[in-house]
């Protein structure tokens, strides 16, 4: 059901095709897509990493 491309502009499909049926996780009242869970998980990882990773001291200009 994706948009139809004119023949002369058909290219290889995206290497990772996310157009398949979505995967969803259910915990009680919560329903969360795997994709959203990955995004939220990455946000937490980046946040924690930003807090913990040592920042270069004034060693000069980066």
């Amino acid at each position, binding site marked *: *059901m*994706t*948009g*139809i491309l004119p023949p002369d502009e058909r290219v290889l*499909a*995206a*290497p*990772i*095709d*996310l*157009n*398949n*049926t*979505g*995967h*969803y996780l259910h915990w009680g*009242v*919560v*329903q*969360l*897509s*795997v*994709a*959203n869970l*990955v*995004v*939220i998980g990455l946000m937490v990882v980046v946040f924690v990493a930003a*807090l*913990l990773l040592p*920042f270069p*001291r*004034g060693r*000069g*200009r*980066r």
Partner: protein
Amino acid sequence: MGRRSRPAAVPDPAAFPTRPYDLLKEFTIALVVVALLTGALAAVFSSPDENPVTLASWSRADAADFTTTAVAELGGTSGTAQYGPPYNHTPDAAQKLGPLGLQSAAGVRIPVDTANDLVLRPLRDSPEPGTVTAALAAWDSAPAARHQAWTTAYSDALAKAPGGDPAKIAGGDYGPVPALTTRLLGLARSGALDGELRSGGKFYQTDYTRPLLFLADGSYLESLARSQHLGGDQWGMMNEVGNFPGQAWVWLFAFWYQIDPFKSSGNSDALVWGLMALLSVILVLLPFIPGLRSVPRWTGVHRLIWRTYYREQRQAGHARHK
């Protein structure tokens, strides 16, 4: 525990020792990194593009649902017909936020007469076979009560027919309704109804209210949406079709619809919007809210962020007290 009545004034950053920090270089690196990351994500995952539903595709895929919806529009029993403002004046239809009737207060600013706008006018504006001319005349000359009787009887019969197929309904007094809706189905299948409803007689037109109201009144569009987890009770507003990430940032907005009292309230939308408006104001005005504005101090995450500074302060304190 001693408490200050006021926190000490926050010192001026300029008073502190400085370190070199190249803002423009940092910005340039950030821009390049984000541009490359975006380019890569776009190349690897692309983006979703599900074809829109048209009245033509709907009527071909699910004629029964289309016909049932058309009868409801004609009989004034569809979702739109019973919606209230901004489309029409339906008593007790508007939602309220406690004592506030904001939906009513806004008034009927997008007037829609479902019978005329969505069924009868498109029929009249298209070439009319003789049966349709006769059916329209019969409709026009009958009182409103007869309209109601015919449409109610026909929609009941459709509900009982196998697969909702108009060809398989029991006999009964449906007046001109079958002729009108059969012709409307034919117009839809040919694609003409899409054009009729969209243009409304105008040349330039960018307002899709009429065809979208018609689509939204049926079950077909919703069934497609629910199969993609986009329904309201499926946390749908957070989701995207397929496996694409959606709008995780509306998680709290979507959450309220899943629980009572919102879930089973006739005013659920007004209540959720009112609550989210309140929470947003609290977020924006957080600096002025005692208690909430002290949460960062209590959690202590800042001790991680500024650990170098706090360590140096402790060392300096020890050095001074030797």
